[in-house]
């Protein structure tokens, strides 16, 4: 089978020429499409008996994680290794950061070992941008505070596209702790840019005022719903977010139980969605809080597909950033 896309676009060149991947906001539709198309080709590599291609032989990728992570860190590590790059993981609990080293010193020391890419996750927004100015290695934002988590949004978009064929025209509900969610922010940018209509829902205390400006600029492609049922009705995709208790210093809602009753996704609530509606969650899932166990395990749930696709999307990103010399 010959894919139509490969015939129409230039056979040797792709519209992607960046040093870093810091956020979705700065990406054009063409760049996003390039990443998703490339990821489609990379997905097959993970299905081979020998899950490795030599594309990044001799390149070094450092995973620098200042926050807990299972999925993202493992996903980046596997992506690098399946491209034959050397991957090094640094978590702050075991690094010199716990001895008081500053971010700048850590970055300069890592740079001195000439890595080709650094994947960084940090609790403060803007740290990847700062790092990108300090080092010549490609910086990939693996999540910075409540700001952005671009690779998650890209793998979500990839999963939606894989199941729905396209993203333009879809009704997509994003429900839960919008305020603390970099996943929500990156997805709102990405999905509206690709032509979807996004409805966000959650307790008003967990929807930051900054979204008012996003809505103003969205030309109707982004709306806020007060009730989860309003957001779900007729949706093609429902994306649930985790309640990030570790980031909450104040009381945003009375109790987890009440949150679960008001905003938890159940099979019954899904009845009003489109008949082929898919359910997504970036993980980790709190079963019985934002999403009921039977929804997680239902045929509509693509939560594990998201994880599988995450490796392919991160392979594509690593390849596009450090696979060949920039022009």
């Amino acid at each position, binding site marked *: 089978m*010959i894919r139509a896309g490969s*015939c129409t676009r230039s*056979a040797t060149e792709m519209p992607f020429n960046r040093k870093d991947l810091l956020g979705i906001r700065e990406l054009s539709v063409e760049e996003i499409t390039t990443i998703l198309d490339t990821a489609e080709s990379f997905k097959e590599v993970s299905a081979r008996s020998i899950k490795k291609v030599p594309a990044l032989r001799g390149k070094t990728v450092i995973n620098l994680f200042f926050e807990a992570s299972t999925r993202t860190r493992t996903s980046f590590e596997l992506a690098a290794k399946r491209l034959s790059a050397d991957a090094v993981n640094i978590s702050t609990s075991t690094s010199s950061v716990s001895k008081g080293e500053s971010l700048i010193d850590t970055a300069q020391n890592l740079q001195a070992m000439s890595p080709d890419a650094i994947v960084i996750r940090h609790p403060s927004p803007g740290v990847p941008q700062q790092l990108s100015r300090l080092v010549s290695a490609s910086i990939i934002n693996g999540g910075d505070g409540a700001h952005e988590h671009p690779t998650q949004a890209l793998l979500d978009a990839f999963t939606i596209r894989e199941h729905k064929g396209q993203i333009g025209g879809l009704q997509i509900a994003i429900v839960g702790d919008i305020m603390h969610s970099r996943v929500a922010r990156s997805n709102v940018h990405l999905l509206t840019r690709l032509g979807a209509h996004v409805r966000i829902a959650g307790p008003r205390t967990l929807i930051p005022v900054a979204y008012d400006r996003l809505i103003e600029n969205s030309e109707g492609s982004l709306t806020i719903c007060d009730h989860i049922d309003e957001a779900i009705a007729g949706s093609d995709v429902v994306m649930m977010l985790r309640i990030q208790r570790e980031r909450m210093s104040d009381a945003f809602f009375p109790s987890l139980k009440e949150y679960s009753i008001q905003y938890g996704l159940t099979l019954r609530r899904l009845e009003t969605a489109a008949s082929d509606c898919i359910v997504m969650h970036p993980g980790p899932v709190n079963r019985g809080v934002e999403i009921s166990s039977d929804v997680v395990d239902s045929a509509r749930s693509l939560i594990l597909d998201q994880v599988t696709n995450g490796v392919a999307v991160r392979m594509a990103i690593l390849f596009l950033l450090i696979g060949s*010399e920039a022009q």
Partner: protein
Amino acid sequence: MKLKTHVMDAAGINRALSRLASQIVERNVGTSDLLLVGIRRRGVPLAERIADKIEQFEGVRPPTGQLDITLYRDDLSTIGPRPVVNKTDIPADVTDSTIVLVDDVLYTGRTVRAAMDELVDFGRPRRVELAVLIDRGHRELPIQADYVGKDVQTTDNEIVKVMLKDYDEDEQVIVVETD
């Protein structure tokens, strides 16, 4: 670029592919365990056409696959613009099969080297053979084709253009000279 010679027209391509197909089944005594793998891009439609012809001769169509060798290129870090990575698709078990790699032009041999490296990541074929429409010489690696549509004498500043209606407006093989 200026046109130097016409090598084949559409009928010529068709005749060459017929000959390659009959040579492949003759040498392999039929089609059992045969797998045709086209190297992207133009090797892919050529592999499909050869499979069609083998079906006409033998009544059985061997399975076909396609390889995108981009990730296995030896010049990946220096080729400049980000290359497009397309899908590789090997539909049958490679282990113990006889694979015929199909490409349009055999030149330096580097593409074939990359294709063989990629192929063995799918398993251990019993034998790998190479079929090309045009062999233009100038090898940089010790690689030979088992089946050749036509040998064409060329110089370094010439380009052999294989045009197939799957991708191009015309269907022909020409040699052009670069400036």
